[in-house]
């Protein structure tokens, strides 16, 4: 074999020490010897650090296994949970938005409302009278609507739901208020409320919050309380002060009943189905809040001192 006859395979075999000594080309004998010497098995000194290196390798491998396996599952679970939450929020929020903007057909809306009411949740309806401009939707759910004569700001300027699902209409005044005034203007969002109107006491309109002195919102005559200060589920508006109260014409509503009462109020009424304004028949009644009314049949006002 001449030196120039090293083809690729021969060179590979030569460098790997796989060519037997008799077959090594002339002039390459020494190189072949050195290659063989360079490839001798390991001496003990070359394996001196075996224990340390092996321990390090094992520690790293064993420590890395949980880090590579578990976090993937955790991350996946977190992602799935987050996606589910976002999806639920979008669906629920979209549905609420559609219902709020009237984007849901009436029969669908009714069906949904009935279904929700059956499980204790009573959304408001957003059916507007024809031609009535739709102001921004108020946060109220309790929407007993009955445009009052005197306190009509709330019912005309604001957006009052006419199909009322009473979810927070229990009057728990001191008086014997067993029914809610039909003309109460509860749950009206009042975008037309003049600025600067003092907000009612925070505690007076909250769910189950007692109305001190029997007046929750009704201390101010003709001035509807801004609904922006009211809790979402139990917005109440006080009737005009001194306004004669209309007789309680309607209706004991339950959470499962969708009352479509639109009885006009002759008097200023209570302004709210569940508010108990001063000088108004419901007197010292308290808002019982949604929780009481959400129970079927629980919307009976339990007032003790007021005049219904």
């Amino acid at each position, binding site marked *: 074999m001449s030196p120039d006859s090293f083809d690729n395979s021969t060179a590979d075999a030569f460098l790997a020490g796989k060519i037997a000594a008799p077959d090594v080309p002339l002039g390459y004998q*020494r190189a072949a010897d050195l290659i063989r010497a*360079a490839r001798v098995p390991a001496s003990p000194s070359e394996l001196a650090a075996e224990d340390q290196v*092996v321990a390090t*390798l094992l520690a790293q491998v064993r420590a890395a296994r949980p880090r590579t396996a578990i976090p993937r599952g955790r991350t996946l679970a977190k992602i799935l949970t987050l996606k589910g939450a976002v999806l639920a929020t979008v669906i629920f929020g979209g549905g609420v938005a559609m219902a709020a903007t009237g984007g849901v057909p009436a029969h669908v809306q009714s069906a949904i409302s009935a279904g929700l009411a059956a499980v204790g949740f009573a959304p408001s309806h957003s059916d507007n009278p024809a031609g009535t401009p739709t102001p921004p939707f108020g946060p109220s759910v309790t929407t007993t609507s009955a445009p009052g004569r005197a306190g009509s700001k709330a019912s005309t300027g604001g957006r009052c739901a006419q199909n009322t699902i009473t979810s927070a209409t229990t009057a728990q005044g001191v008086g014997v208020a067993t029914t809610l005034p039909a003309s109460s203007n509860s749950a009206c969002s009042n975008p037309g409320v003049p600025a600067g109107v003092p907000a009612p006491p925070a505690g007076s309109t909250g769910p189950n919050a007692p109305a001190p002195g029997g007046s929750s919102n009704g201390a101010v005559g003709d001035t509807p309380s801004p609904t922006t200060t009211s809790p979402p589920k139990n917005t109440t508006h006080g009737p005009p002060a001194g306004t004669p109260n209309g007789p309680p014409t309607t209706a004991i509503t339950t959470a499962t009943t969708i009352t479509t009462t639109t009885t006009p109020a002759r008097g200023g009424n209570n302004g709210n189905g569940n508010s108990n304004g001063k000088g108004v028949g419901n007197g010292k009644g308290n808002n019982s809040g949604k929780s009481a009314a959400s129970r079927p049949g629980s919307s009976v006002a339990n007032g003790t001192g007021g005049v219904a």
Partner: protein
Amino acid sequence: METLPSGNSLDAARAGDEWATTCLFRESNPALLRFLRHHAPDVAEDLLADTWLAAAKELPKFQGDAGDFRAWLFTVARRRVADHYRRLHRRPSLVELEAENLPPAGDRPDESSLEALSAQSAIEALVRDLPPDQAEVVLLRVVADLSVDQVADIMGRSPGSVRVLQHRALRLLETRWTRESVTQ
């Protein structure tokens, strides 16, 4: 020469098997140490430890077969050498072999002397007159037992370029020892 880690032992080492990890070390460490002693004899053990530390971090997630792992080990070792000399702000120097380990110049070592010749001395005698790139090819081919393609990957060259360097190195070795024989 050591055998390459088998695929099974590499998989077992990745899974944390002690025996397989020991085999992996025994099959790779001598070649790594010889390679590092050639390039940086003063700090070869330190660089070897750094290489194994890097291997320990990489091993659990390493993708490839045993040959790939061996090539990867030498890639890391070369980087450690480069980092070392970068820190020293100077180029790698040739290995300064101890006089007693050098084979006598012009003498063809016989079998007895080859027995006494350490692997490291043989490596240095083999590549001492070669240009650095040719010496590197011979080292990676002989000591690390890597293929042409693997050497090409490590050195950032094409396989053809590596083969050319390898061929030139062999020719240079043949010329040197032929001349030495004639002068004797």
